[in-house]
């Protein structure tokens, strides 16, 4: 594809500097996005998906901080902008974001229109009748009636509110829209129709989109490229066609298998045992190795590099050409995973003290 590059992220690291230690929420993320393309970002909760999205807007909440790497948004170095510049130059104009739980985002005391015109007012100085016309045009674009402009948020259903938010995100004609779990709280029928609208809008307006979700089945329908994230790493990146057909990384493999198929009878669902690691102190070597069904001895010590496997970038030792690594023995675990270890990890977060049980409160 030789269309214009909209976004280029290179070795981006965003960490949260908490009093307990540095949370490595996003490490070494690199990808490119062309005009009109869409990327789906998937992974379990706590894998750094939302941190990535906030970094792209230079809106990471403290104690979070972009540590290194660059974000090139249509020629603008986003990571170098100050808060004021970011607000003026990129947010809404270049990138806009539809947040998770967007339905609670609207203030109940103002009408939909009052809230919608704000970006127009502050960025372009458009007000009054003219602003109203623009808003109504965008409301119609997302299949809503223009009269919604005068209604209050509580008068709308969840799906309608979500549409209003999407329309607002499009108002200033950004190049890129980031949608963080856009349909999680909605019913399937409404979800399918909003997804349809998004597909159509992307084509009509020629904008790029980044979808963030933990549900891979939705991404298959809307994303050209797919980034699978685990514990702050992008473990697999490639065209979604390739990845769905033949997932390369063991994590992706398991994640795909966990989607229940509605057409066939199955006895058991696949799942990934255990919980994602604590990112203050992630496992050495590959961060996925304690939960991996294909883990080798080398995975415990050496961080895997990113390999190109038929156009798909995979961060896994399985695809290494180094003979020593390729011949590493399969790791031996007594059990692939146990809750105890996970429990310990959680305890670690709480300062490790063993809590003494006070003499029973329930004992009467």
């Amino acid at each position, binding site marked *: 594809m030789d269309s214009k590059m909209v976004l280029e992220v290179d070795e981006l690291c965003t960490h949260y500097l908490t009093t307990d230690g540095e949370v490595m929420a996003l490490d070494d993320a690199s990808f490119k996005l062309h005009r009109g393309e869409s990327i789906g970002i998937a992974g379990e909760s706590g894998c750094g998906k939302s941190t990535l999205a906030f970094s792209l807007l230079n809106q990471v909440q403290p104690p979070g901080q972009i540590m290194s790497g660059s974000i090139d948004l249509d020629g603008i170095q986003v990571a170098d902008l100050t808060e004021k510049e970011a607000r003026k130059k990129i947010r809404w104009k270049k990138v806009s974001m539809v947040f998770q739980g967007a339905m609670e985002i609207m203030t109940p005391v103002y009408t939909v229109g009052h809230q919608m015109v704000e970006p127009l007012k502050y960025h372009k100085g458009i007000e009054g009748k003219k602003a109203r016309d623009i808003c109504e045009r965008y409301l119609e674009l997302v299949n809503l009636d223009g009269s919604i402009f005068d209604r209050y948020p509580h008068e709308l259903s*969840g799906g309608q509110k979500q549409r209003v938010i999407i329309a607002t995100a499009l108002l200033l004609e950004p190049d890129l829209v980031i949608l963080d779990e856009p349909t999680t709280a909605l019913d399937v*029928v409404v979800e399918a129709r909003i997804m349809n609208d998004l597909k159509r809008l992307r084509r009509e307006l020629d904008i790029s989109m980044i979808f963030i979700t933990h549900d*891979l089945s*939705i991404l298959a329908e809307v994303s050209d490229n797919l980034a699978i994230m685990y514990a702050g790493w992008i473990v697999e990146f490639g065209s979604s066609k390739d990845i769905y057909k033949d997932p390369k990384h063991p994590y992706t493999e398991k994640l795909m298998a966990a989607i229940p198929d509605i057409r066939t009878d199955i006895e*058991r*669902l696949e799942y990934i045992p255990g919980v994602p690691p604590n990112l203050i102190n992630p496992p050495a070597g590959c961060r996925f190795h304690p939960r991996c069904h294909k883990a080798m001895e080398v995975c415990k010590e050496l961080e895997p590099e990113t390999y190109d496997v038929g156009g798909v970038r995979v961060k896994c030792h399985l695809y290494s050409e180094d003979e020593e690594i390729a011949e590493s023995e399969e790791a031996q675990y007594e059990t692939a995973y146990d809750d105890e270890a996970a*429990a310990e990890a959680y305890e670690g977060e709480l300062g490790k003290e063993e809590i003494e049980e006070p003499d*029973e409160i329930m004992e009467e």
Partner: protein
Amino acid sequence: MAEPLFKARNLTKHFQITQSFFQKLRGKEKQVVRAVDGVDFDIYWKKNFSVVGESGCGKTTVGKLMMRLLDPTAGHMYMKGEDISAISNRQQLKAYRRQTQMIYQDPFSALDPRHRIRTILEEPLMIHDIGDSREERTDMIHEALEEVRLTPPEKFLRRYPHMLSGGQKQRVSLARAMILNPDFIVADEPVSMLDVSVRAEVLNLMKDLIDEEDVTYFYITHDISTTRFFTDYIGVMYLGDIVEKGRVGDVLDTPSHPYTQALLVAVPEPDPERGRGVKKVPITGEIPSGTNIPSGCRFHPRCPHAKEICEKKDPEEIKVGKEHTAKCHFAGEIEFDIEVAK
């Protein structure tokens, strides 16, 4: 067929909307929300039954009625032949609830954050006077934690809920329900708050417990894609009524009610080749309010196949297969086809 474990006949729950003083003065008609509007279903021993539908269709109300957390407006429920809708005395109700337990949607708020796991699990035992000594109860708690694969149990007893992951929390809720050895569990969206990968783990566990603990689930969900794996029978609910029910394979493979068909079209396809284009979701609009249920067939204003008769006459249950019925005038005549416009 054996006698069902649980039977509901014409189960109905109407909520009265409270009127303000002025509304009463003006003689405004009392509004009633018909949340559950005469549903019938049978649940057989160790054959899970799932109810699917959009939010606001009344599926949670059915679950609450079954637990007798709400009193039905009309109709009857029978558990092992005994009419439980008629129970009015506290003692009997307590005995019934020992056999029937509930799991809630949000494990993050279903567990008291100020109690340790031990206290949380001991509470049902105290309420039902089970176990003579603290040691005996501790053994039972251990056993319950082992059942839900939280091992070793000693590790978990002293933890607080916030020290567990979402999946572990939901397993504690499951242990709390299981500790009384119930026959029947009402699971209200037990996995919808969990990540896809953890969801599968919890559902697998719940399924294993059917045989291990002789338990039957009533599974309430809006996620139709998990029903095929988890349950044997399914009921599709729309605006307070079950519009189609039957064996889960039959209903999902040959959906006969236009609403079921629409739900199935809307399920996202985990396959980029098949799901790419814009799907033709046959229904528009959103579920109407329960105060104002349309005349005739309650689905007709949104139905793509609606004819004149649908506006006037409420459809009867039509048999479209063995143990498979649909409440539609044209059941069995409407063909199911997922159309995708490129």
